[in-house]
């Protein structure tokens, strides 16, 4: 399943990029409005890895988790995330890296 999702995601992003379609709209932060915890019915069905990831994502600062999801789902890289949120690339990188390390710690 993992390889399929990864493949599909990467191919989709690559195609959009090849067609010159790069997301440039300002980042749409959920800002805590949407409940990051999945519905109970979903929770029962998703596997251990997924539950752990979602739990740990929920421990991150809302904006950081959103940036990581945006990168994965919308194909925005560091520099594009920075542009979309009007943040210097360096600032964006160090923020996300801090979040990733926190995520790693939580997942271990």
């Amino acid at each position: 399943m993992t390889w399929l999702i990864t493949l599909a995601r990467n191919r989709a992003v690559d195609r959009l990029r090849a067609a010159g379609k790069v997301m440039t709209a300002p980042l749409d932060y959920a800002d805590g409005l949407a409940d990051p915890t999945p519905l109970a019915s979903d929770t029962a069905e998703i596997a251990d890895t997924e539950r752990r990831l979602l739990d740990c994502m929920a421990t991150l600062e809302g904006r950081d988790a959103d940036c990581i999801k945006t990168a994965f789902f919308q194909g925005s890289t560091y520099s594009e995330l920075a542009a979309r949120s009007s943040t210097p690339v360096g600032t964006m990188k160090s923020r996300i890296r801090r979040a990733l390390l926190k995520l790693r710690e939580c997942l271990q």
Partner: protein
Amino acid sequence: MVPEANDLLAAELAFGLLDPRDRADAERRVAMEPALAGVYRKWQDYAAALAAGNAEQPPSSLWPSIQARIAANDTVALPTRAALRRWQAGTVVAIVAALGLGALALQRTSPPPASKLAAVTRNAPPLVAVLKGDANRAIVVISFDRSSNHLSTVPTGLRIGDHSAELWVIPKGGKPNTLGLVATDKPDWKPATHAARTLIREGAVLAISVEPIGGSPTGQPTGPVILTGAIEAS
């Protein structure tokens, strides 16, 4: 490189955070460093879990942008009544043209009328003569295929020693006309000469004479006629 940095790079790669050049570098390293590859697989699982866990809500801007595109399609693509009529008229014209062409094609491929067919087949059967009369009981079968204009000769038991066998066609009440030499030891199939095409008819006679090597020097038989046969339609 410390494990933490490996984890970080693998996570960045798995979530798609790296810019193209960094991504290419990271992918190269994953291909070459088994330890990094293992960590990367783990982070791929997490990233995929993000999708499988349905954690992502579509951005709130997505639906309005889809709506905008649908609306744009409507105004641009909706044809006016006049345009619609033109298309409908065009369709009718196209259908009529297609039917006409179809009928034409059918006519062209249908078999020719029976009278034409009969004329062709009347011409088709070959003319045949079986030439006999030799003391050695030799037989030469000669056929003239009028549709392909070819003359075939099939000799059996024809032995004339150090001579040539020459074939003649003798029209009713006429003089012999040469049709050339005939192979004595093997079947032959060759295009018919002008004389053959015009003189080989039902009722005419074919004959073979024994001539000096190379054929008759006079244009008329000079040696004995050893075989004759009447021409018949097969």
